[in-house]
């Protein structure tokens, strides 16, 4: 359906946001093709929320530019607002309103509102429409908020840790309903989380944020294909650094061992190549960045853009 779309749903170019305490997002660049479910992963405080709020038009960038569905994020641009949906981290709802009232809010504030779509989702999930949302469980509240976000039929959906506060079953149900939504509609999703196993299932694209920078941004299949654990003799270490991108080097002694992104001919045949899970690869990026801060003389390619 949409896996090979040429259009770019989200584009960040040197994006940065500075607060008094420092840069929350710094020189962040990546491009997300349309139709993907993209996971935005990083440690707490890595800048995920700030990045998403900038993409949603709620925060103004200090540096750089962004484009979502081809438009610069702007809370005063009706076309932008119509095509981009956003769900904030704390799932904000009016506590004493019912789910029905929230849908009515969506209908009142969005000219292109699909009441059937929003209503059917809640009915299918068994969410009571006439109870105050403060009385609903966390998972149900997340579904109500999601129904409001997608009822206007956005082209891009930005979700900021929507499942962080949910129990595992509610998380799985939320992601499943998100997946069903993707299957039926022309939609791109950017979903931030610090829980990698969730993202691994549903994301086909990944952006890894370390201290406000995108250190990796690519299709999941590509990431898995090109990242290997390489083990070999000491002499292989220099050859590695020359021709490939070393993500994290945890060599000890005479044996070189590193997570490497292969970008050339295969390394020294004396090296062993091992496949890596997505989680291992992401952890390598997070660890590698930390190591780069503390031990600068390791043979590491700098943490630059992910592409």
């Amino acid at each position, binding site marked *: 359906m949409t896996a090979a779309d040429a259009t770019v749903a989200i584009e960040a170019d040197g994006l940065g946001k500075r607060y008094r305490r420092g840069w929350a997002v710094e020189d962040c660049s990546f491009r997300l093709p349309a139709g993907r479910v993209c996971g935005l992963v990083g440690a707490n405080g890595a800048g995920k929320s700030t990045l998403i*709020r900038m993409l*949603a*038009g*709620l*925060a*103004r960038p200090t540096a750089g530019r962004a484009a979502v569905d081809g438009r610069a994020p702007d*809370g*005063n*641009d*009706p076309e932008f*607002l*119509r095509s*981009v*949906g*956003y769900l*904030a981290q*704390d799932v*904000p*709802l*009016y*506590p004493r309103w019912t789910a029905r*009232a929230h849908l*009515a*809010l*969506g209908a*009142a*504030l*969005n*000219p*292109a509102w699909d009441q059937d779509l929003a209503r059917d989702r809640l009915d299918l999930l068994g969410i009571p429409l006439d109870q105050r949302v403060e009385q609903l469980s966390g998972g149900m509240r997340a579904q109500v*908020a999601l129904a*409001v*976000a997608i009822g*206007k039929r956005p082209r891009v959906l930005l979700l900021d840790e929507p499942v962080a506060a949910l129990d595992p079953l509610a998380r799985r149900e939320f992601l499943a309903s998100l997946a069903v939504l993707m299957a039926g509609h022309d939609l791109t999703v950017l979903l931030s989380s610090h829980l990698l196993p969730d993202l691994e299932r549903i994301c086909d694209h990944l952006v890894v944020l370390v201290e406000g920078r995108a250190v990796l941004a690519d299709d999941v299949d590509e990431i898995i294909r090109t990242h290997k654990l390489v083990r070999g003799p000491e002499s292989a270490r220099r050859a590695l650094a020359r021709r490939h991108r070393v993500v994290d080097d945890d060599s000890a002694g005479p044996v070189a061992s590193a997570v490497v992104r292969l970008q050339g001919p295969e390394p020294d045949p004396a090296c062993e190549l091992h496949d890596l899970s997505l989680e291992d690869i992401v952890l390598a990026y997070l660890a590698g960045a930390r190591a780069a801060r503390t031990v600068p003389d390791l043979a590491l390619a700098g943490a630059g853009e992910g592409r």
Partner: protein
Amino acid sequence: MTWLVWRQHRAQVAWAAGALAVFAAAIAITGVHMADLYGAAVRDDGSAGPRLLDHLFDGYGAIIDTVHLTLLLPVVLGAFVAAPLIAREADLATDALVWTQSVTRRRWLAAKLAAVVGGCVALAAGVSALVTWWSGTPNALGGDRFHGAQFDTQNLTPVAFTLFAVALGLAAGAALRRTLPAVVATVVGYVAVRMAVGIFVRPHWLAPLHRTGGAGPDARLRSGSWLVKSDLLDPSGHAVGVRLAVPRSCARVSAQAIDGCMTRAGFRTVITYHPPGHYWPMQLAESGLFVALAAGLLAFAVVRTLRAEP
């Protein structure tokens, strides 16, 4: 936006409409009664002086107090309607919800402000009209529309005060982004400004007049004047402080004759006052000040909210 504004404020509108209806009924009934009473008393007694009619409205204490209570309307509207408007959205984080629908932030703010500012000003105007009409009779009796609570609750000033309080509430909400601090700030700010203006600025909108007379209680002022202050001067022209040194010549004079004695001894009373003709210019001046303050606060609230990053 009409749906949203109504949905969020329908409870407030219901309360206000109910209270206004009850108030209007009470005003209408008592106002007519009091006017009749006064008219009858004036006819009966020929030229009715204020002293004769002093106890005419004794039984009407409750409604008189209620009318004076409308002094609180501006700060109530400012603190409990205007301050939570923006602050509560920030408190609940629902600003991130409403600002990411298809309505632009500008349009959201414009609709909200129009409704709340317009509604509160309209309510204040309605209440002021009722109070001003009702006060026609007590004003005629007491000639006191120029001072204190009467100046604050009749004609233009209550509407201007309401506009100011609402703007202050909006500004506090936009700046503090938490409901309780915004409410407190609005109340404190309103009381402080109103008191400061009332004490230091109001007497000087127009230059007050002075009149010197014999020692004794307030000289006769025309009905509808505002006595700002009254000073007793000793024969050398200094204002007498708390301790009055009664001259020996008047030490054993009876209470009724003490004033005449003091006057002959050289004591004078100087009163500072505004004649009735100053009433409307000062209503306009004070209202103008508060409207200008409101405009500044509204501008701040608008800019702050449009730049907010929830």
